[in-house]
């Protein structure tokens, strides 16, 4: 018995000796220890692969840092994972977070470090004016400091099926630009039975509430659209929003509008040829170009001419996601330096240009935008100019630069639920928005109470 144990111990010792020798032999080969930077991303498919590619290019370009990307689920799931990791004391260095989560992230004092400050800690230059104005407006504090670094930037546009337009006797080269024109086109499509549904929309709250607000320069709430900090109240139950929702409710009855779900699901209704018109993120272009078996065109997001001065629409606002930097008790200045260097790499013109061209997102920096413009990219690629005209060169107003409210992810779903009820015929638009306002306000007050300290 004893002798057996002795041999076991011996063999264990010799085994570990082998391991020790092995690691000793390997370590000189790795040259020096690189500092690891963890980045969590919420992108899949082509966009996710590209981001991973940029990461390995950055890793190859220098020897001090190694950025490791991981996918932890869609944005909400990833956020929950990051929160848990933060509470356990080991959050990722960088997290990609979608637009609607910005309010919650901003309020997480101590958990995040504004990106302007990260660059300061790293002793590197950072100029918010490098970014395109709508992105800067969306992601910066009132004092001009930027909270997070805009990365994938998109806005909402209108796609239409030229074949269905022709079948309905509509001008396929002249897409409708205003809501009355869209309504008329959608009704014609139904009357001529050119397709089963007139138009549909993805991302209901983002397009019909947030983008709609920017397009008509209407605030979603007070305190500079929530961007001045906590204590803001919502203003969702107004005539403009009622009109938009009631239009959808009325059109649902004859399928000139057909609801296709909250997120991206409705895109399939357009791609399959079921609907003639689709309101969608400009980032959805890639999938449509790849899968649609018909001629399609891109138009600007429609507006109500009688709701804007001089009948000219305002710019839409941005969507997409930005990169947030987490704080943690044991983070060193060196790590922040690594983060800043990586950000510098991502926002460099070659990377930004490549990213925007390949994915259909907009370039987030002025330099990348200018480079693409000089090259003639937007004129050479029909449809790609639309988000630029509408977002970057659009008419700016106090409420086109985005909003920032706590628990907005939930408030979006409240809007979805209430509008769904209205579309089901259980309530009218005014009731839907009244309920959204009431429930949204309760969420916002609870958010303020939780973050008071």
């Amino acid at each position: 018995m004893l002798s057996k144990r002795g041999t076991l111990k011996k063999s264990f010792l010799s085994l570990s000796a082998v391991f020790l020798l092995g690691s000793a032999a390997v370590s000189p080969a790795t040259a020096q220890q690189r500092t690891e930077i963890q980045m969590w991303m919420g992108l899949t498919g082509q966009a996710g692969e590209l981001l991973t590619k940029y990461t390995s290019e950055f890793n190859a370009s220098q020897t001090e840092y190694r950025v490791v990307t991981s996918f932890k689920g869609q944005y909400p799931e990833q956020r929950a994972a990051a929160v848990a990791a933060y509470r356990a004391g080991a959050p990722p260095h960088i997290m990609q977070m979608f637009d609607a989560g910005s309010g919650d992230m901003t309020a997480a004092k101590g958990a995040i470090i504004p990106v302007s400050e990260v660059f300061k800690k790293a002793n590197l230059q950072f100029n918010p004016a490098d970014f395109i104005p709508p992105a800067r407006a969306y992601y910066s504090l009132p004092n001009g400091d930027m909270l997070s670094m805009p990365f994938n930037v998109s806005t909402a546009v209108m796609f239409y099926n030229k074949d269905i337009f022709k079948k309905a006797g509509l001008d396929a080269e002249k897409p409708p630009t205003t809501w009355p024109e869209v309504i008329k086109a959608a009704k014609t499509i139904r009357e001529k039975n050119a397709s089963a549904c007139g138009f549909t929309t993805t991302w209901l709250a983002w397009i019909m509430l947030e983008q709609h607000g920017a397009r008509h320069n209407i605030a979603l709430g007070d305190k500079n659209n929530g961007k001045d900090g906590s204590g803001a109240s919502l203003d969702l139950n107004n005539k403009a929003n009622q009109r938009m929702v009631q239009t959808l409710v009325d059109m649902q009855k004859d399928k000139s509008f057909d609801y296709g779900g909250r997120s991206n699901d409705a895109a399939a209704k357009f791609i399959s040829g079921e609907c003639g018109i689709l309101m969608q993120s400009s980032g959805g272009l890639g999938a449509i170009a790849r899968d649609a078996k018909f001629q399609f065109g891109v138009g600007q997001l429609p507006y109500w001419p009688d709701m804007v001065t001089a009948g000219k629409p305002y710019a839409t606002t941005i969507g997409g996601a930005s990169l947030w930097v987490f704080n943690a008790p044991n983070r060193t200045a060196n790590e922040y330096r690594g983060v800043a260097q990586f950000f510098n790499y991502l926002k460099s013109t070659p990377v930004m240009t490549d990213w925007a061209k390949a994915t259909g997102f907009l370039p987030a920096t002025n330099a990348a935008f200018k480079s693409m413009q000089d090259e003639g990219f937007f004129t050479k690629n029909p449809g790609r100019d639309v988000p630029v005209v509408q977002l970057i060169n659009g008419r700016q107003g106090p409420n086109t630069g985005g909003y920032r409210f706590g628990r907005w992810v939930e408030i979006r779903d409240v809007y979805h639920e209430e509008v769904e009820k209205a579309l089901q015929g259980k309530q009218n638009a005014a009731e839907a928005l009244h309920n959204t306002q009431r429930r949204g306000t309760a969420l916002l007050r609870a958010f303020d109470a939780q973050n008071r300290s």
Partner: protein
Amino acid sequence: MDRKVFFPQKILPYWLLAPQLIITLVFFIWPAGQAAYMSVLQQDAFGASVQFVGLENFTALFDESDYLESMWRTAYFSIAVTTLAMAPALLLAVMADRVVRAATFYKTSLVIPYAIAPAVAGVLWLFMFNPAVGILAWVLKEWGVDWNPALNGGQAMTLVIFAAAWKQIAYNFLFFLAGLQSIPKSLLEAASIDGASNATKFWTIVLPLLSPVTFFLLVVNMVYAFFDTFSVVHAMTGGGPAKATEILVYKVYNDGVIALNLGSSSAQSVILMLIVIALTFIQFRYVEKKVHY
């Protein structure tokens, strides 16, 4: 030959029990305790400010009509899933039990759905019934059904119930079939000699003798409908449209993970835990008495 096997060690039994006890403690008791603890706290997502609020999270839940509606919805959903998962399974088991040729083939094909993950089952059904591209949605539309589960709550609920039940049929089938095969053939033969029809034999002999299996499956299916259907709902409807498919376990997820409202979410999981404990208790206490072993 009644020899007792006897181990003199006092500690050995504890060592043998330890793995199971540790698993129970770490994976069941500890998280349940955490949930109970967090249900009396209110905190922001990042844990920067935590305060004790007593039972406020619970009272807030019952002030909301949403929560009570979700409870009724869950009751409806669980009963529907359990019924739809058990009745066809019993029918199939009776049929498969009678088949003589290629019996193994039938049995194997009927068991296959059990090997499919709930989320995958959800996605499969979603594809078949997707209003834009689904083949069965196309059939429904040809029949003149205005099929759009993204908007029609009743349709969404039906879809989720069918997907959740379908997945469980295979499991129930397996148990029913085993139960049927353990019924002594002599009883059935005796009944046949007495001139009993197939239906009479089924109702008076087979069903009573299957009752232990049925009872076991009832408990398992109820618990399945309460908890394990989460991924089916998540993959298919996300609780929508307009909360039409938001069952209790989905609401826990939605409030906890999406909304990061940890207090309310924990309070809900405590309630859910109590409901399932109560259900299991009632089933063992009252239903079991009617079961013939």
